[in-house]
């Protein structure tokens, strides 16, 4: 049975976790104060391509002909992750590498068991998972590591290609073997 959360070897995880009444500001403050970039706790997850943590607290009324208005009874913390590989090891990695931070933002959510209780932690996240209908990526078979290596390699190739212009064949071949061939 095809898993619609998958594209190639990539996986899209989406979770909507209800925030405890009165805790919305605390969650907001917590996620907005997270360091960004390589200092982000999410950077410790080496299979994570892209991720967002945001608060969902309003269903927008579109206007006529929408007849009924939906109002949320809770605010939700929405966690989306585009990762490579399987979900279980990814959730394990969150519990292993950023338990304090995870507790920090999910701790304000209903029925959160804490990262220390590994099985309950994973069960809770899967319980709150919203399945995707379609997920797609332009490079769905490349892991995070593969992407980073390829990007670095491209820089080296360009450096080489620029410096090697005008070299005699023997010198070109020698330098290619020394500088580039081993990188592949």
């Amino acid at each position, binding site marked *: 049975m095809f898993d619609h959360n998958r594209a190639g070897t990539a996986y*899209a995880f*989406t979770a*909507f*976790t*209800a925030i*405890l009444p009165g805790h919305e500001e605390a969650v*907001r403050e917590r*996620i907005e104060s997270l360091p960004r970039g390589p200092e*982000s706790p*999410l*950077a410790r997850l080496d299979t994570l*391509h*892209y*991720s*967002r*943590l*945001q*608060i*969902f607290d309003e*269903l*927008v009324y*579109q*206007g006529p*002909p*929408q007849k*009924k208005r*939906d109002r*949320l*009874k*809770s605010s939700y913390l*929405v966690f*989306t992750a*585009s990762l490579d590989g399987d979900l279980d090891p990814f959730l394990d990695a969150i519990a292993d590498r950023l338990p304090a931070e995870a507790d920090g933002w999910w701790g304000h*959510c*209903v029925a959160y068991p804490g990262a220390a209780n590994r099985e309950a932690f994973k069960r809770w996240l899967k*319980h*709150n998972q*919203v399945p*995707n*209908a*379609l*997920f*797609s*990526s*332009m490079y769905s078979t*490349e892991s*995070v590591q593969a*992407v980073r290596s*390829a*990007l670095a390699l*491209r820089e080296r*190739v*360009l450096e080489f290609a620029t410096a090697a212009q005008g070299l*005699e*064949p023997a010198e*070109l*071949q020698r330098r*290619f073997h020394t500088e580039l*061939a081993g990188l*592949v």
Partner: protein
Amino acid sequence: MSQVEAPRPIERVAIPGGGNTYGARTALMLFTPIQPKWTLLVRVSLWLGKWIPFVQQHILQFRFIHFVRWAVVRELPYNGPPQEPDRLNYSYLLFETNFDGAWRNYIDSFAYCISRDIRYLWGRGFAFPGPPPAEPLKAWIAENSMEGGTYYCAYPEASTRDVLAAVAVRDRLGALVNESEGLSPEAFQDAYRRFLVDVQAHL
């Protein structure tokens, strides 16, 4: 008499920002109601999306989108008290995308290049301002997009095209290394030149 809208409001469209961007990467998330009579059609269209060439060639062709997902949400997960169950009147279309560059220009691509697809999918909602034109669509998106929070990108300096180019260079270099086994310097120079010609658009 040309049929144009009344002058648009002078306030410009509020631009999503903050949590939604990191460097030149931008995330967009929408959660919008679907008309009940169309919910099944939306579910089936997305479900089959992968296999319909039309979808692959249209909505999924843009080389500035890293990852994109859709979900149809009928009910929100319930965890018991003190959470009150949220019973929604509609199914909602969740859309999450990570792309390169400016939000305003990104929406132009949707509005001008795949307007039919956009109307097909989001037009199954209520009061959707079908593109073209693009400006009302931008206003609608600004109104409906989820803001704030935090945004993480594992390789923020790289655009989608950078990643695709890097992968192409890597693969072609691998082929060059293989074929260069035991070649004379002149033959290697030829092979190397062919390599450069093949990857010139990727460097």
